[in-house]
């Protein structure tokens, strides 16, 4: 295990940021800490980096006790959401910083800086100041700077949070490819489930200072441990008293299919690109629970997502009567808390 976190607690005054968190992060993987804002994921990352100290508990990095080590002795690379570029230094100087601090020979430093700038596609900007770069370029520079010291772990705190959607997506792909090249143990914090699902080998879902679930993206998506994980990893709706993903619902017209189904009318239809989003108001009857279901109301509305071609094939429009049923292998979960 590359990073071992044991029973870490952290409070900020009355606010409990982390409660008894234990986590093992394997070597060489790309791990995402995913969760809502204020859930404690950034705090955990900063504790690993030594930028914040835990109230209790321990952190080991590559088997070495690191709980009380100052950040400069941990050999971690840290990338900040707002880049933390050294504004008075050129891009090349920024990247060289860690090597100069370590008093590496000049020639070696220069060679390594050139290599890294090549890796992050910033070679032609070596002599610019950070203020002359775009957000995405600055963040790539920050990454090169963190990688320069050959850290045992690379920690990224919402690395793409300050960038616009298109650049964010590009950098996401690029981070994945970079990790495949460099293979350094990487942990990144994000509140964007798509980012986590797309980039990470393993996802740690953190909410309210606790770890809700740890696992590879597919496992989390297909078998969420609880309704929080399920609703955080993608849109959910309620069908017949259970949580289900809107695209896991089969829509049929012209009569109830075999098995349990909910009958209703389409009240809204919204097309976004290739997908069609339906809002279905269930009728006052229920096949499964025998009249248990209440009449139409906002809470009972079911959201359904299908492809455009499918919607066209079924000839759906507002006011159509449809039967809804979970499709085979759909992830479902009883409702415990309000979503």
């Amino acid at each position, binding site marked *: 295990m590359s990073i071992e976190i044991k029973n870490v607690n952290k409070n900020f005054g009355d606010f409990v940021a982390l409660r008894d968190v234990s986590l093992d992060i394997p070597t060489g993987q790309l791990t995402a800490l995913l969760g809502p804002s204020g859930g404690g994921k950034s705090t955990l990352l900063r504790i690993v980096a030594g930028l914040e100290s835990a109230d209790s508990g321990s952190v080991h990095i590559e088997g070495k006790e690191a709980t009380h080590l100052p950040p400069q002795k941990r050999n971690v690379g840290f990338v900040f959401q707002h880049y933390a570029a050294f504004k008075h230094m050129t891009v090349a100087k920024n990247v060289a910083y*860690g090597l100069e601090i370590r008093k590496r020979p000049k020639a070696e430093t220069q060679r390594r800086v050139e290599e890294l700038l090549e890796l992050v596609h910033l070679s032609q900007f070596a002599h610019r100041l950070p203020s002359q770069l775009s957000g995405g370029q600055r963040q790539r520079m920050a990454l090169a700077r963190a990688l320069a010291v050959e850290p045992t772990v690379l920690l990224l705190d919402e690395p793409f949070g300050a960038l616009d959607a298109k650049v964010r997506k590009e950098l996401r792909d690029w981070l994945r490819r970079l990790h495949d090249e460099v293979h350094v143990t990487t942990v990144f914090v994000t509140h964007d489930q798509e980012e986590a699902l797309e980039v990470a080998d393993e996802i740690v879902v953190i909410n309210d200072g606790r770890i809700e679930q740890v696992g590879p993206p597919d496992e989390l998506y297909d078998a969420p441990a609880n309704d929080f994980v399920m609703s955080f990893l993608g849109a959910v709706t309620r069908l017949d008293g259970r949580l289900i993903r809107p695209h896991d619902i089969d829509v049929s017209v012209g009569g109830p299919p075999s098995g349990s189904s909910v009958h209703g009318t389409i009240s809204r239809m919204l097309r976004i690109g290739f997908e069609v989003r339906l809002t279905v108001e269930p009728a006052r009857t229920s096949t499964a629970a025998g009249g248990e279901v209440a009449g139409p109301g906002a809470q009972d509305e079911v959201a359904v997502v299908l492809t455009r071609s499918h919607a066209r094939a079924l000839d759906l429009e507002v006011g159509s009567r449809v039967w809804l049923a979970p499709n085979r292998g759909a992830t479902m979960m009883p409702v415990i808390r309000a979503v």
Partner: protein
Amino acid sequence: MASARLREPTPVRWGLRLLAIGYVFLLVLWPVSLVVKYTFADGLTALTTALGDPDVIHALELTAVVALSAVAINLVFGVWMSILLVRFDFPGKRALSALIDLPLSVSPVVVGLALVLAYNPRTGLFGQHLDAAGIEVIFSTPGMVMATAFVALPLVIREVVPVLSEIGDEQEQASRSLGANALQTFRRITLPSIKWAVVYGVVLTLARSLGEFGAVKVVSGNIVQQTQTATLVVESKYQGFDQATAYSTAFLLAAASVVCIVVVSLLRPSESRDES
């Protein structure tokens, strides 16, 4: 239409401008220009006489020593206190911050008296021990440096604190995570970021220290050729009817301040350019 209504009628606008210019002229420009005029009333004679007077030479040298020492002390402590105030949380932080502004509001004469009470060799709490150790504070250069440093204390801090809080601590954290210790981080990251604020604070401190009169007069004892600074020379020469020398020394002090102001105004734009 809206902009036309927002503008005052022309006579009112000109009246307000003249009032502002007249105010500055009558209060600052004219009196100071008179000092220059009287200094050079007989060509360079007054200035050369003054510079030939050992009292004046000694006073100018002493002023330079006192002012530069006070600047050095306030530079080190000012930057240190600013970092303490911005980067660290500790009980009594707000009290300390308020205390730093005290020298701005307390009359320098009071500062001088307070220092005399604390450090005089007969009844002063520290003075007795310092005297026993052979260190003279009051009526001597250390006391004058202390008085000047006290009076100019807030100037560096008030320049540096806002800049430090604006740049935030992420760059410093990044530096730490890249392997730099606290001292390396300060020298390579923090100091370059606050450089201009420090320079500006130093220039202000220097101008303030050169012109300090009240506090220094109380602690120095005003002994000719020993503890008499340039401002004290101006007063004593003026009262001793050696007005030419008084004007000349006053002119030199004013010239030094003007140089400070010019330096500041040259620095100001470069500072704003730096931040853009």
